[in-house]
């Protein structure tokens, strides 16, 4: 069931790959706006790089959440998935995994290219990619709770952001902290370990909260 859900969602994402790519382009454009807006001074750019890239990753992850449940909710598939004898936890985990593979991983792999715009060193670019690789699944998992709670509501993307961005803040702090530590030469591992801890915690608890939220939203 788990494998089936992942394959199905990946297939659907491939069929609608324009949506997928637009999330990536959003990330690209937002990150590129900052050097344009702030000016080319390298030292300043290096200071703001971790925060800027991470905030853009946060926003892009949040926008991709719209694809997670909304389409299935609208054509009734989600209701059928809730009725299967398989645990909803696995269904949610599968969908989130598919979402991360399609949105989070390309984001993380693209980030070193964007980091070059800010004049970061090769080591820092590596840390940036790793931090995003560890952090984006956490964002997808926590975001799935918000997406499940707001199914079919008129608030739309804005309501999801109010719910989900406060919960994203710890990931942001440790993620940009890791890249910052790499720039200043202090402890990168501490921050990365904390993101890893958040990943483990969210892997265990978030799908459970999301299942509960789905049942609440679908009654």
């Amino acid at each position: 069931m788990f494998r089936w859900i992942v394959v199905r969602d990946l297939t659907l994402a491939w069929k609608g790959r324009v949506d997928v790519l637009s999330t990536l382009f959003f990330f690209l454009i937002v990150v590129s706006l900052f050097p344009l807006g702030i000016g080319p001074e390298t030292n300043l750019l290096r200071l703001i790089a971790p925060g800027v890239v991470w905030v853009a990753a946060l926003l892009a992850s949040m926008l991709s959440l719209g694809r997670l449940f909304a389409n299935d909710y609208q054509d009734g598939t989600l209701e059928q998935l809730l009725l299967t004898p398989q645990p909803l936890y696995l269904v949610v985990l599968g969908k989130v995994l598919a979402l991360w593979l399609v949105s989070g991983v390309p984001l993380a792999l693209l980030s070193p290219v964007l980091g070059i715009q800010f004049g970061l060193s090769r080591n820092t670019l590596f840390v940036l990619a790793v931090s995003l690789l560890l952090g984006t699944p956490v964002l997808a998992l926590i975001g799935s709770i918000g997406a499940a709670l707001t199914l079919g509501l008129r608030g739309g993307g804005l309501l999801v952001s109010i719910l989900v961005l406060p919960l994203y803040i710890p990931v942001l702090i440790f993620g940009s902290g890791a890249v910052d530590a790499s720039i200043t030469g202090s402890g990168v591992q501490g921050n990365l370990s904390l993101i890893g801890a958040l990943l483990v915690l969210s892997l265990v608890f978030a799908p459970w909260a999301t299942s509960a939220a789905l049942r609440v939203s679908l009654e």
Partner: protein
Amino acid sequence: MPKINWYKYASPANFYPLAGKLIPWFAIPAAILFVVGLYVGFFIAPTDFQQGDAYRIIFIHVPAAWLGMFLYVVMAIYAAIGWAFNARLASMMASAISITGAMFTLLSLVTGSLWGKPTWGTWWVWDARLTSTLILLFLYIGFISLQASIDDPRRADRAGAVLAIVGVINVPIIYFSVYWWNTLHQGATIRLLGKPSMEGSMMTAMFIMLAACWLYSVAVVLVRLRRIILEREQNAAWAAEARA
């Protein structure tokens, strides 16, 4: 002595008049304690050796911060009860608490800023306690927005419950942040066992203000709860009489 059937008060129709009778029992002592607490705090407690008179904002800041955290936990508990036992009065209580909790959290952040400027030299600093209290405020706002944007009241109750329970992990983080991280915000001065490091009359004033704020919260939450009950139960016969 005859057994009292407490469960009868789980019905909004029965709790409405009880809440009305309880409100003055909390509001009047709250008002008295406010006056007493502020008097002790401003006229009896001595000037601080290090901070001068600026420290006196502690008499609002600490109770507000404490209540912001405490009310969130209480809100989460009521929301969980409303969800688990399908008790709509408990969910209404959670909705009533949310606004007071948000107000106290905002008050603690604002008074903290006002205190920080003369003592730390800055209006804001991104340390662990301030950041996690800000997250708490956002969680309250998220709870209130979520409930406001769902039309079906039972779905709104349950969705809010999920959000409140997910966010409750933040409260211990705020509380322990001063132990876990090296922060600018001062550590704990009041320990459960052992001697506190704050002077006698200051402690007294702070606890009086804490009690005052707590009683005030109960009173104001009950008032808001009554309004919510009338709004949600507006189609019931008893509600039409109560409104008249």
